[in-house]
């Protein structure tokens, strides 16, 4: 039997935050919620408080100088988590402005101690703590006094078994503030501004006793409160792996000829890039992929990043969405982050137990990302593909490709290496007609066809025809007739013209 103390982790009630914290907040910890004005510190504190406070574990929220409590109550109650019934029952707001104005930190400490003794809270919040520090800065020894105050407060709260949060504006995290040293946890909120875009980010700079997910984690504030978009834990990816086990089995893409070209269908858990110029039939192919899944009793998720997503759906897909076999992720929220998109897709995948995911299109996806993430699009793509692979789903992504004819490319993002399968669609000109050809460029760890096959799009979807054996130079866009007599096993007539 271990003799080490077991630290209870408190579920914060903030979606995604417990994942970032690696299991929740340590009970009786002394935490600092810091950041610039307007970044969501008070909201985060309130959300945690309303989630955790109970009559048996009451909370005290000390309001100091700064935002007047009456305005704080006015605005915070706009959030869904704010429960009037909890006030004066499990949550007590206490204003210590007068004590703070005196500049005597001992007076503030005595008042806090008296209220803590009176209410025996399990949770204590001090907002804003920076006001306390400022009020105390009257002489050269203020830093020492502040450090003494913080230490006393820390000792008091820990002995009273209260998990404590100091909320404050700290503009300079490099400045060695004594609070930073004493705190067990340091949650820093930021706002990244680029052009006309603002992205909120959270960093757990420190959390004693537990490893947290490093890095800046995007979050969004809505009427429901704060939602943190935790990245997929690398350990989870490594452990679950998803497709390594499932790649042995294959699924149909809904087009028997294309299945044959892929070497017998699509390996499950693979990521597929369908690249082609505008109007070549990429979305139609993804529809066939999803419809085939539904026919086999599988569910799917489609993430659309188009201005008018309704227009791009055909009747079959619309019906499947209607009856709940396909979920749509159609985030119109501005300034999306990759983790937010992954979170939205993952939620739907888990809700439906989906096995097929379509992202239509990567071009729209890139535009939907906040400018701050766009330079790292390849990295974002990698995280997206990795996260979806960990879910074990097969994902088909479309990519707009300019038909240059002199430049054989499959993705404008240099992301082709990230995907397991590449299907390319091209336009060619034959006998004064604009025809379409399709080829399987890559299927990781699998044999596949190298044929360039004609295809057409009709009302009922894609029809794949044969090869144009009597033509050469197809990828140049303007093939010429070959003169070899034996080349007779295919022609433009195999596929209907557009």
């Amino acid at each position: 039997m271990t003799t080490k103390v077991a630290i209870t982790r408190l579920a914060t009630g903030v979606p995604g935050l417990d994942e970032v914290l690696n299991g929740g907040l340590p009970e009786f910890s002394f935490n600092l919620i810091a950041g610039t004005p307007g970044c969501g510190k008070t909201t985060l504190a309130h959300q945690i408080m309303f989630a955790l406070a109970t009559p048996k574990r009451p909370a005290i929220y000390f309001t100091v100088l700064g935002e007047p409590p009456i305005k704080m109550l006015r605005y915070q109650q706009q959030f869904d988590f704010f429960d009037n019934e909890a006030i004066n029952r499990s949550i007590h707001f206490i204003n210590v402005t007068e004590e703070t104005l005196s500049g005597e930190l001992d007076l503030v400490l005595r008042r806090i101690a008296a209220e803590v003794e009176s209410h025996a809270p399990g949770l204590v919040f001090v907002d804003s703590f920076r006001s306390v520090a400022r009020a105390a800065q009257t002489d050269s020894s203020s830093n020492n006094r502040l450090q003494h105050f913080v230490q006393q407060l820390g000792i008091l709260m820990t002995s009273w078994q209260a998990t404590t949060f100091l909320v404050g504006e700290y503009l300079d995290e490099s400045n060695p503030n004594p609070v930073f040293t004493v705190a067990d946890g340091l949650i820093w909120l930021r706002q990244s501004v680029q052009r006309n875009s603002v992205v909120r980010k959270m960093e757990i700079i420190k959390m004693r006793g537990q490893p947290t997910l490093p890095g800046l984690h995007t979050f969004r504030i809505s009427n429901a409160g704060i939602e943190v978009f935790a990245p997929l834990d690398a350990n989870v990816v490594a452990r679950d792996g998803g497709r390594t086990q499932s790649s042995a089995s294959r699924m149909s893409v809904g087009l028997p000829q294309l299945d044959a070209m892929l070497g017998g269908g699509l390996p499950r858990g693979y990521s597929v890039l369908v690249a082609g110029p505008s109007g070549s039939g990429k979305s139609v192919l993804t529809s066939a992929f999803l419809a085939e899944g539904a026919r086999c009793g599988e569910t799917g998720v489609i993430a659309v990043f188009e201005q008018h997503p309704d227009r791009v759906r055909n009747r079959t897909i619309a019906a499947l969405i209607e009856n709940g076999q396909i979920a749509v992720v159609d985030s119109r929220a501005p300034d999306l982050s990759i983790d937010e998109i992954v979170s939205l897709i993952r939620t739907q995948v888990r809700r439906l137990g989906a096995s097929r995911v379509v992202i239509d299109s990567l071009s729209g996806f890139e535009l939907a990302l906040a400018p701050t993430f766009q330079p790292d699009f390849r990295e974002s793509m990698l995280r997206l593909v990795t996260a979806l692979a960990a879910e074990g789903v097969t994902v088909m992504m479309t990519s707009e490709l300019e038909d240059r004819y002199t430049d054989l490319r499959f993705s404008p993002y240099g992301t082709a290496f990230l995907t397991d399968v590449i299907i390319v669609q091209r336009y060619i000109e034959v006998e004064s007609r604009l025809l379409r050809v399709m080829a399987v460029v890559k299927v990781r760890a699998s044999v596949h066809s190298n044929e360039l096959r004609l295809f057409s799009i009709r009302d009922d979807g894609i029809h794949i025809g044969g090869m144009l054996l009597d033509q050469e130079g197809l990828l140049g866009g303007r093939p010429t007739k070959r003169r070899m007599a034996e080349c007779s096993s295919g022609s433009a007539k195999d596929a209907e013209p557009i």
Partner: protein
Amino acid sequence: MPFAVDSLSKTSLSKTMTMIGFAAALVRRADDGADATAIADAIVVAWQEIDAALSPIIGQRAVAALYRRGLSIIGQDYPWLSDTHEDVATLLDREAMRSALAQQSGAEAAAGGAAALQAFHDLLAGLIGPGLTERLLGSILENLERSENLERSSNRDISP
């Protein structure tokens, strides 16, 4: 100006039955012949309890500021009340209110006192919502109304 209970339900931004009940009880007590001093005492007790409930939460300066704003709103109907508070006072001046109320007739004191409470209540409800206002002041006003009714009935028992 005599205070009409009905006017509360017409003019207030938001109101609770408890507030109307307490105000109505005050007016009824005045109708029964209670003098201004007794009315003033009851109103000052009400402010004392409201102040005690709210100051720890929103700060005594905020309570004083709302109080002053409330008096300013009813100033046209009750000018004798609106002069009882300093512009930048940090504390609610209950003694000044008691003194002003005591100089009126019982009915006028009840009407003015009830209007001041209602104005304060509505301002608070407008800022933090009727739900939270009820949560913070509801039980206090209920108790005040109960005491007021008890006082009234005991007075009647003594002098039928």
